[in-house]
């Protein structure tokens, strides 16, 4: 597929996929915060992963060098993305695969639907993948009469619960085992009505259901964690082995991959396969690392399609500060250390990419105006930057994107007035003295109007001092 391209790269289209929330972050967060069960689940889950990951990161003596290497490899790959993608296309084609280029979610969905239709199957099994959630592939398949079956246990829970994922790595983090039992009883075909909420029993029920599906479905759809340009090799890392089933059993394999997942050389995987499991699940080594290069006659899928997806990524790449968001390897370490995510959960972010990385990636993929509240969904505490295995400076990106966000008119006027006063010391000193009049706002600020009343709902304002520091200094 080739086309003449003119002008600036475009952002991800509206009306398809899951990058835009229905409401701004503060409103969605408010609802999540009032859900005590959700807060408990999240607090427990993030604290557990945080401790596990922290321990295995601390035991690697060259962790900082590995982070620097990961960052450098990604920066290099982004700097010569077109060349690497063409090399990848050549190698995959040489190895018997077929490469498709999709400018956006609609094109990618259409390509996948056509490919599945051509096989005659009305069902596909799916490896856990963020990118197919991003483009709304399941909805597109269903609309075409094709049933997608998620095979990652947590994604299956989300799918059967007609729910949305709330974490990159642990999509059902907002569910506890009692809720999972109810979902299975309600929606899993052929489930034992005597199901208990013991984790082993729940897993066995899912295994029975999935095994049937693996053995009877001829087409699988996956994402990719890495693609090696020099060899044409695709890689998926997972913990359950269900991905391995999808990648090896069916006759046809379709992989949808964001263009930023390409790395130059095979050897680069050495760095990422050390960084990813420790930052992500807190494991020393990833349990199931599947790699494949095109088609191997008589072994595994005999038809392999690779769909290379842009969907706003070129627009991100055009921003020299913002582009580092494309370095993300989807480990979710930033979610697990984020004090905001820990309390609101993933749904509040509106996009399939929640947490700190979502707050900088989603607004760039859609254009900042469509996700204007997300860059503000952070206290800029910096825990995400420290946790990121590829050193994405998320606080810097948040500040960068806030500068591009549309601002409320009243706020703009107040900020302009403040900047003017602060650049005129006499005016500034007068404004300082006026804070003593703040008693007009009621006792300890309780009479303040919105949006300042957000502060005074739970906090007192300090009593204004008798004199400012500069008055004291002048009187010394």
């Amino acid at each position: 597929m080739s086309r003449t391209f003119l002008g600036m790269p475009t952002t991800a289209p509206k009306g398809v996929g899951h990058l835009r929330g229905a409401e701004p972050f503060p409103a969605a967060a408010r609802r999540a915060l009032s859900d005590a069960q959700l807060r408990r689940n999240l607090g427990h889950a993030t604290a557990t992963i945080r401790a596990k990951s922290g321990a295995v990161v601390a035991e690697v003596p060259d962790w900082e060098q590995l982070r620097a290497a990961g960052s450098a490899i990604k920066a290099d790959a982004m700097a010569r993305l077109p060349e690497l993608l063409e090399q990848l296309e050549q190698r995959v084609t040489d190895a018997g695969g077929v490469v498709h280029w999709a400018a956006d979610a609609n094109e990618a969905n259409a390509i996948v639907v056509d490919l599945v239709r051509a096989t005659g199957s009305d069902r596909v099994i799916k490896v856990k993948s963020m990118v197919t959630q991003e483009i709304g592939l399941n909805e597109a398949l269903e609309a075409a009469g094709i049933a997608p079956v998620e095979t990652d246990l947590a994604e299956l829970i989300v799918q059967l619960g007609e729910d949305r994922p709330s974490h990159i790595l642990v999509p059902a983090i907002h569910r506890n085992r009692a809720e999972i039992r109810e979902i299975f009883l309600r929606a899993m075909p052929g489930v034992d009505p005597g199901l208990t909420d013991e984790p082993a029993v729940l897993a066995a029920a899912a295994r029975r259901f999935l095994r049937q599906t693996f053995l009877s479905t001829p087409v699988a759809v996956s994402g990719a964690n890495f693609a090696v340009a020099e060899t044409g090799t695709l890689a998926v890392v997972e913990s359950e082995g269900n991905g391995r089933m999808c990648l090896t059993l069916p006759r046809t394999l379709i992989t949808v991959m964001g263009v930023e997942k390409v790395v130059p050389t095979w050897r680069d995987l050495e760095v990422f396969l050390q960084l990813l499991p420790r930052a992500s699940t807190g494991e020393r080594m990833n349990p199931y690392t599947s790699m494949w290069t095109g088609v191997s006659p008589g072994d595994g899928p005999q038809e392999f399609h690779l769909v290379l997806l842009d969907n706003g990524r070129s627009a991100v790449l055009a921003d020299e500060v913002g582009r580092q968001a494309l370095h993300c390897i989807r480990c979710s370490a930033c979610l697990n250390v984020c004090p905001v995510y820990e309390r609101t959960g993933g749904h509040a972010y509106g996009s399939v990419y929640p947490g700190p990385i979502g707050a900088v990636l989603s607004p760039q993929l859609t254009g900042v105006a469509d996700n204007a509240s997300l860059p503000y969904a952070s206290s800029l505490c910096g825990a995400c930057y420290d946790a990121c295995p590829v050193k994405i400076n998320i606080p810097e990106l948040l500040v960068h994107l806030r500068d591009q966000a549309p601002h409320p008119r009243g706020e703009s006027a107040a900020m302009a007035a403040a900047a003017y006063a602060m650049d005129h010391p006499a005016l500034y000193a007068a404004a300082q003295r006026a804070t003593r009049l703040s008693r007009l706002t009621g006792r300890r600020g309780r009479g303040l109007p919105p949006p300042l009343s957000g502060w005074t709902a739970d906090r007192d304002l300090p009593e204004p001092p008798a004199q400012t520091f500069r008055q004291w200094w002048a009187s010394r």
Partner: protein
Amino acid sequence: MRIALFVTCLADTVFPEAAKATVRLLERLGHEVVFPAGQTCCGQMHVNTGYQAQAVSLVRRHVRVFDPYDVVVAPSGSCVGSVRHQHAMVARRAGDVRLASRAESVAARTFELSELLVDVLGVTDVGAFFPHRVTYHPTCHSLRMLRVADRPVRLLRAVRGLELVELPAAEQCCGFGGTFAVKNADTSSAMLADKLRHVLSTGADVCAAGDASCLMHIGGGLSRSGSAVRTVHLAEILAPTEPDRAGGERSDLVVRS
């Protein structure tokens, strides 16, 4: 040593005791403190809220005011973080390369209080006396932007009469985040509630930190919940000495929460 005080707009306007204590402490240690009168605000609020263009004049003012001094100190990790990590960026983005390079030069001479004491002046025992049970909140920008690490704690450990109790989950943000506390007030409150729970669990009668902004947030929550725990800036713990107390100068040592 001649040290210029970058008071910060918040300490100047709302928490002057933290700034006065900084002056008293440095003078007591034998240094000359000067207060450049043209200073106002470093512009962090503008930068962090998405108004970088409006922050340019504030960066220019800050650089002009502090450029003549060899050493600048601020009783705030956050404002020093802004000077060190944002000023040159704001200038460069506005196309003013000369201002960016001057901002970098000023930033290299600007220190947060615990950095100045430990790294520049080489003291950890400042001869202070503060007979209270104290827990210390490290504040995000001191911890992760400036990497002050255990400098404040080393200073606190050397204070006579002070009992330091560890704050659980100390490294978690208190939920202030500047305009975050207004724009995302509910999430900020949820973060604050956990911080308050941890502070109260220590049984400390004082919660200390190196940033008046975080103390304003934590103190506002403590005050609203009716707690008797006070928030006190690090400088106000390091400034008083035993004779000070005997002399009865205690009344203005403490930031009222």
